């Protein structure tokens, strides 16, 4: 089968629209994953053993089951309970929740790496919990977390094509629609692959640079 530039040019505008949806989904889902992840990390340090054990198994359940099935659950099951959400919203929620179980580990490790003395110092200054977190712990914990969090951002970007399965017209589904109506998979699918590489390879390089930067800052 020959590469046909006419198809390649014709599909480009649709892929452009799709890419915008893909990027929107990535950004919203990652914000959700970060906020929820931080929440889970803090709750996992709770004094109540019941909370910790419960949270452990809930997050393990989410981590050990496929995103695609989770998407189906939210997309098909919620309407039965009278909750009607747009496909895009469903997708973003599922991606956000799924990856919050991963980012929570990053947050937990980052927080645990703050030396115990810092907690004691905050206590001796009579800081309340909010002050302790805001002024002492998080400012020290966050910088080393940035590179792994950036990596999860890239991972989430690569998982967004799954939203196509619940009718979100993002990059992949835009290509698939063109493929189905013009009987050619070659050009649209290749271009989708290229689009992904164009976005994710430079992002991965940037993440690696961040990693080096924060490592240097630590040793300096």
């Amino acid at each position, binding site marked *: 089968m020959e590469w046909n530039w006419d198809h390649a040019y014709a599909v480009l505008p649709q892929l452009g629209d799709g890419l915008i949806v893909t990027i929107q989904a990535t950004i919203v889902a990652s914000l959700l994953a970060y906020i929820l992840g931080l929440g889970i990390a803090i709750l996992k340090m709770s004094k109540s053993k019941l909370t910790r054990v419960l949270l452990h198994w809930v997050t393990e359940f989410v981590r050990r*089951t*496929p995103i695609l099935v989770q998407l189906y659950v939210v997309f098909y099951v919620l309407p039965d309970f009278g909750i009607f959400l747009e496909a895009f919203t469903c997708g973003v929620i599922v991606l956000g929740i799924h990856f919050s179980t991963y980012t929570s580990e990053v947050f937990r490790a980052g927080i645990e790496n703050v030396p115990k003395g810092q907690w004691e110092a905050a206590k001796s200054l009579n800081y309340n919990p909010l002050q302790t977190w805001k002024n002492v712990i998080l400012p020290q914990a966050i910088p080393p977390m940035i590179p792994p969090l950036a990596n999860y951002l890239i991972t989430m970007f*690569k998982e967004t094509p799954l939203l196509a399965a619940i009718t979100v017209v993002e990059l992949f589904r835009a290509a698939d629609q063109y493929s189905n109506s013009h009987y050619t998979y070659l050009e649209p699918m290749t271009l989708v692959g290229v689009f992904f590489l164009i976005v994710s390879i430079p992002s*991965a390089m940037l993440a690696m640079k961040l990693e080096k930067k924060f490592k240097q800052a630590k040793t300096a």
Partner: protein
Amino acid sequence: MNEVIEFYPILIKGTITTIQLTVLGAILALIVSFIVGLARISSFAAIRVIAIVYLEFFRGSSALVQMFFIYFVLPMWGIYFDALTAGVVACGLNVGAYGSEVVRGAVLAVGKEQHEASKALNYSIYKKYRYVIIPQAIPIMIPTFGNLLIELLKLTAVASLITISDLTFMAQIIRVQTALTLEPFLLILIIYFIIATILVQIVDLIAKKFSKGRNIMTAGDK
């Protein structure tokens, strides 16, 4: 729920297909991991470049796109796979790319003195890696490989989109036929969770077996 239970024959079939995809995909991923991981530390620049191109290609784009490419685009060039093979190839090549980084990292983590010792014993490069470096690198790889195995299991669900009748595909059939939504999906979520948990246990067992006699140093720490 009873309606869903009546569909148990196809659920069992789907579970078997999912396990097949996972096991075959894992074998391919393991082979690819070692080939690409070792190629990354080759002394020939050309081999290193090919390995990096492979790695960036499979890590840089989405698994679903790769699967569609293998199943729908390659036949246009005369390369035909049936759906199951396409699924195994896509899962294996994708996870293998991530695994190659694990192999490379673990091999590089083996101390310099081990290389020097092999040299002192006049080992060939093959013998050095076969008997000295890789046996020491494997225990380092196992925990991360365990995580990748779970990722692989989750990836097999995506294969339902290229018409492979795995668990996820079967749940869709049940949904369409019974108009039930919660029950079939909840049921397969639990099945996936059980398979994943068994895999985690197996990897833990293997890790324990490999670390036997190797943790003398760390045992003293605590």
